[in-house]
């Protein structure tokens, strides 16, 4: 950035046209549709006052909804990171018939509307459903319990871990692994000590994306979870309920907490990316 500090006239002239128009429209569109409405959200809960906001956010129902959403999203992103890593490994390293189909299917939760996923999962895991009836035999109830929340979140967030790890793994190359092999390491040692550490930034990035997606998920969960207040009621649903009761400030309060979480995840992701860039 040699231009910094020079007077305007010395800066490299912009050769391409359309800078003001494109940036202007971008900023206008972003501001009106995203930033101003988000500002409305951030301002709203303070109409209750600091004490009122705190009281509203620490009511048992709100706390248990937030705990359920964040806790279960964390569990779902750990499950998806483990299985996402295995799936990415299989897709990149192995050759087998039907691999293209498996690869294409990974993005199904992206493409399938969440309401469709919700009623499908609910039918599968209901006590008389294909999976639910088997699990009932072992005394496990998924539908209409917090486990339902976990199943829906695991479904919805899987593509984020696979699709973040997969391209990094494909580019990794096998030089270091070959080196480790010539030095006498066993295959499992190579995977654990050489390949996985190099994949760590991608695994963490995928996990953060999966977490962000899972924590905000609504459509697929409400059909499966039964939505019992204090037990299987997620935070986004509580926002909807508070809106229906015209408790705008209360709804906005939960919204602000969730938005703050999104911001933290974005910051974490940026930090992860610069860390990964440094490691290269």
């Amino acid at each position: 950035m040699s231009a910094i500090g020079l007077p305007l006239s010395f800066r490299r002239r912009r050769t391409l046209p359309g800078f003001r128009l494109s940036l202007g429209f971008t900023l206008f569109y972003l501001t009106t549709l995203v930033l101003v409405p988000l500002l409305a959200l951030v301002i709203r809960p303070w109409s209750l006052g600091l004490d009122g906001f705190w009281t509203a956010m620490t009511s048992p129902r709100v706390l248990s909804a937030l705990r359920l959403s964040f806790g279960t999203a964390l569990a779902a992103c750990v499950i998806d990171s483990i299985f996402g890593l295995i799936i990415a490994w299989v897709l990149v390293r192995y050759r087998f018939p039907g691999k293209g189909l498996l690869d294409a299917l990974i993005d199904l939760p992206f493409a399938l509307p969440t309401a469709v996923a919700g009623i499908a999962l609910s039918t599968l895991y209901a006590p008389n459903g294909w999976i639910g009836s088997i699990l009932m035999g072992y005394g496990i109830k998924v539908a209409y319990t917090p486990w339902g929340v976990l199943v829906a979140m695991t479904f919805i967030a899987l593509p984020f871990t696979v699709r973040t790890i997969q391209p990094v793994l494909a580019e990794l190359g096998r030089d270091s692994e070959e080196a480790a092999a010539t030095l006498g390491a066993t295959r499992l040692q190579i995977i654990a000590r050489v390949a996985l550490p190099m994949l760590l930034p991608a695994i963490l990035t995928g996990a953060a994306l999966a977490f962000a997606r899972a924590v905000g998920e609504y459509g697929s969960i409400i059909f499966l979870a039964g939505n019992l207040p204090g037990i299987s009621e997620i935070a986004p649903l509580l926002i909807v309920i508070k809106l229906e009761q015209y408790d705008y400030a209360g709804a906005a309060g939960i919204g602000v907490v969730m938005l703050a979480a999104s911001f933290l995840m974005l910051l974490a992701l940026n930090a992860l990316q610069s860390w990964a860039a440094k490691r290269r």
Partner: protein
Amino acid sequence: MKKLRKPTEDPLLLKLLLGAIAIAFVGLFLVLPLAVVFQEALAKGLGPALTAISDEDSVAAIRLSLTAAAIAVPLNTVFGVCAAWAIAKFDFPGKTFLVTLIDLPFSVSPVVAGLIYVLVFGAQGWFGPYLLDHDIHILFALPGIVLATVFVTFPFVARELIPLMVDQGRDEEEAAVSLGASGFQTFCRVTLPNIKWGLLYGVLLCNARALGEFGAVSVLSGHIRGLTNTMPLHVQLLYDNYDYVGAFAVAAILAMLALVTLALKTLLEWRYADELAASHRH
């Protein structure tokens, strides 16, 4: 003679184990839900399913979903192209921050996306009283549904084009301009041919999400049957009324749309890998 395994290749046992885990997980979590949609839709045969789809309210829901997508997707496409042009072809301070802001709607809960517009346009919102006085309907009407759809599909085209156009650099455009082409000519004749498959890829994903959005639209639509119910909302309404064949029949249309999207997406990734953002190349 026994064939030797390459040192960087996994042992057969490990391969089988990991392969089985991957296939079992995908089968259990992705294939089964998809299969159950079609199984339930056709539980009473094709006739009742077709009747449910051609029902007046279902047709209205399909039309509303298509209308909302037909407005939201072009808007976000224009935005995506503008944002990518500004970010890829020029240097300015705060660029990284701008990219982060463009990505923000991805990590915001759909319900929060609906909520923010209620706080702006709702009866108790910023512009609520004004809108009420002038009899302008945004919430519980088409504009609200379009707003929700725009928000949740906001970054799709932009985040597809930004890395692609940053990769492609500025040389070709600069050459065109120095030879006397206008900005518009440069974009149409030089940039567009370079990014067309990436653009299509972004529009495809944007459209799929626009047709399938549930949470944000659910907050803003008011759920008026036959009037403000989109396809996913209509699925919920039928399901909650125990009309399972109807719910799954409409769901099956959405599932088929999803499968078509996946097929086209895979086709683009295979056929035009070099012309997509690096992260989608196989």
